[in-house]
């Protein structure tokens, strides 16, 4: 029996996790919440060393040191633009760890049952073990695929092949059948096959998801890992794992729904949309239709003598590391008396809220960041909209063309402004791979070039006015 003080300590840790999540959902308390969660996690992991008679302690401590080193190094090195894939990676290894733990526990349970001659475990424990193995493996391989897509190790576009839905259904049914077998006739080989099936399901689940939908899937897999950890907590008889895992599972699912709603799609559509209408995907090619382009000097005059300017920043801005230059430009325009705001689409960047992080990195004042619903009415009174490295979030196809993959996504109404300036590297379409009609609008001017370089030229041109 676990001593009472240990149980109470775990209860305290569970409460800290609740408070940590609560803190993370408010801007003022977020950092404290995160640190509280970290402290609770460290305390919870230290407790077994105190009250259990653990073997192999030096090896365990060594493994923790290795994992900590890798984790800290990765977390410190990663660029803010690569944050989504980093979260995917951390999430995937967590799911993998949970699956391995469940496999070990299954082997342990089988050996105990062998030794005693009777099985002391009820069927529910075996069911939870099977669940942990499968879903942990799904999370691991699914996250690996999302990582590969975001890191551009493979195409970010949906990958669909004939028979994919059938393969997915077969793998799913086989996993259910073997889970039942785990309950009725527990054996280690069943667990291992379940893990392999889980890996296959994860890959098949994420392959058809493309473009801007990938981050939503990361959030979903995050919730999966949470539930996996919760089930693992039940298997190991650990309340703190159960509570922490369930919290993340529930909060993660809810967050996934929030993000999906911000993009105007359902989670089912995100996961399986590509399977239904494979031909609606964009061409992903550059167009040769005529556009109007201008140099930095012309655009500087446009901006410098405007009274109201709205900036629509996108992922391309952050990739070019041009946030600082942009902030300087906004400061200079502000000093000239031009009213400037940033319009932040909920999914600007690669993940909901990502653009806020990227602009905060460049110390853009928080008050200048306007959320979509607050600023959409103001585009009508705006002289110039400057779109930097964004594309899909201002694409009117989301409103007008039901065939487009982004149809139904709420967009920034940049097309309502008097003038639109697009800063682009090339005529290549955005993440969703579809052409943007706004580029060919008579009100639109294109300013070609690398975002950082061009913004620098624009900045000196405005200063010279």
């Amino acid at each position: 029996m676990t001593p009472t003080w240990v149980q109470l300590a775990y209860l305290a840790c569970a409460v800290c996790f609740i408070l940590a999540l609560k803190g993370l959902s408010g801007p003022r308390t977020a950092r404290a919440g995160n640190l509280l969660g970290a402290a609770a996690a460290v305390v919870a992991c230290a407790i077994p060393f105190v009250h259990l008679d653990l073997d192999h302690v030096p090896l365990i401590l060594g493994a923790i040191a290795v994992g900590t080193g890798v984790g800290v190094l990765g977390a410190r090195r990663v660029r803010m633009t690569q944050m989504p894939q980093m979260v995917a990676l951390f999430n995937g290894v967590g799911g993998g760890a949970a699956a391995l733990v469940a496999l070990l526990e299954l082997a342990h349970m089988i050996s105990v049952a062998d030794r005693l001659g009777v099985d002391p475990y009820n069927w529910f424990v075996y069911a939870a073990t099977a669940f942990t193995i499968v879903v942990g493996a799904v999370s691991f391989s699914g996250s690996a695929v999302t990582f590969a897509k975001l890191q551009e190790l493979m195409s970010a576009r949906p990958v669909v092949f004939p028979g994919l839905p059938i393969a997915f259904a077969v793998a799913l049914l086989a996993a259910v059948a073997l889970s039942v077998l785990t309950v009725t006739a527990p054996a280690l080989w069943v667990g291992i096959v379940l893990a392999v099936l889980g890996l296959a399901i994860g890959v098949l689940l994420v392959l058809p998801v493309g473009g801007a939908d990938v981050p939503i899937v990361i959030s979903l897999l995050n919730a999966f890992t949470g539930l996996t950890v919760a089930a693992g907590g039940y298997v190991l008889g650990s309340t703190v794992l159960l509570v922490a895992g369930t919290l993340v599972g529930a909060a993660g699912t809810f967050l996934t729904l929030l993000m999906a709603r911000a993009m105007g799609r359902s989670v089912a559509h995100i996961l399986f949309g590509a399977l239904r209408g494979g031909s609606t995907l964009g061409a992903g090619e550059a167009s040769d239709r005529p556009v109007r382009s201008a140099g930095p000097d012309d655009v500087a005059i446009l901006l410098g003598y405007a009274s109201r300017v709205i900036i629509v920043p996108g992922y391309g801005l952050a990739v070019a590391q041009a946030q600082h230059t942009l902030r300087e430009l906004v400061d200079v325009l502000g000093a000239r008396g031009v009213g400037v705001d940033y319009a932040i689409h909920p999914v600007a960047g690669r993940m909901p809220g990502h653009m806020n992080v990227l602009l905060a990195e460049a110390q853009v004042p928080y008050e200048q960041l306007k959320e979509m619903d607050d600023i959409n009415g103001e585009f009508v009174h705006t002289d110039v909209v400057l779109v930097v490295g964004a594309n899909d979030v201002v694409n009117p196809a989301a409103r007008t063309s039901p065939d487009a993959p982004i149809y139904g996504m709420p967009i920034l109404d940049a097309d309502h402004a008097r003038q639109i300036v697009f800063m682009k590297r090339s005529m290549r379409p955005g993440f969703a791979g579809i052409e943007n009609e706004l580029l060919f609008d008579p009100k639109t001017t294109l300013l070609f070039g690398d975002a950082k370089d061009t913004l620098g030229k624009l900045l000196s041109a405005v200063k010279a006015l």
Partner: protein
Amino acid sequence: MSEPVVWLTIFVLSVFVGIEVISKVSSTLHTPLMSGANAIHGIILLGAIVVTGGADHWFAITIGLIAIVLAAINMVGGFVVTDRMLQMFSTPQRPAARPDGGTERR
């Protein structure tokens, strides 16, 4: 109450708490929240430690150690990266702030 029902009760109540505590999050914080929640499920490290500490076959120990490394990456990396993100939100929000503030950590 039978034992599985006690666990089920904890589970169901935790679901409601999990939804309730984040229900008012603004979209600004979606990314750090996702990352912070991600770090919290790194608590599977606790399970990995317990299982490995009780293993007696070299193969089981090896698998357990791998699980510990993976779980530690999830937990520690998750909390550190979340803190790095939130640090940027909490720096003084003045336009005249240090111009090199964003580059020093790169």
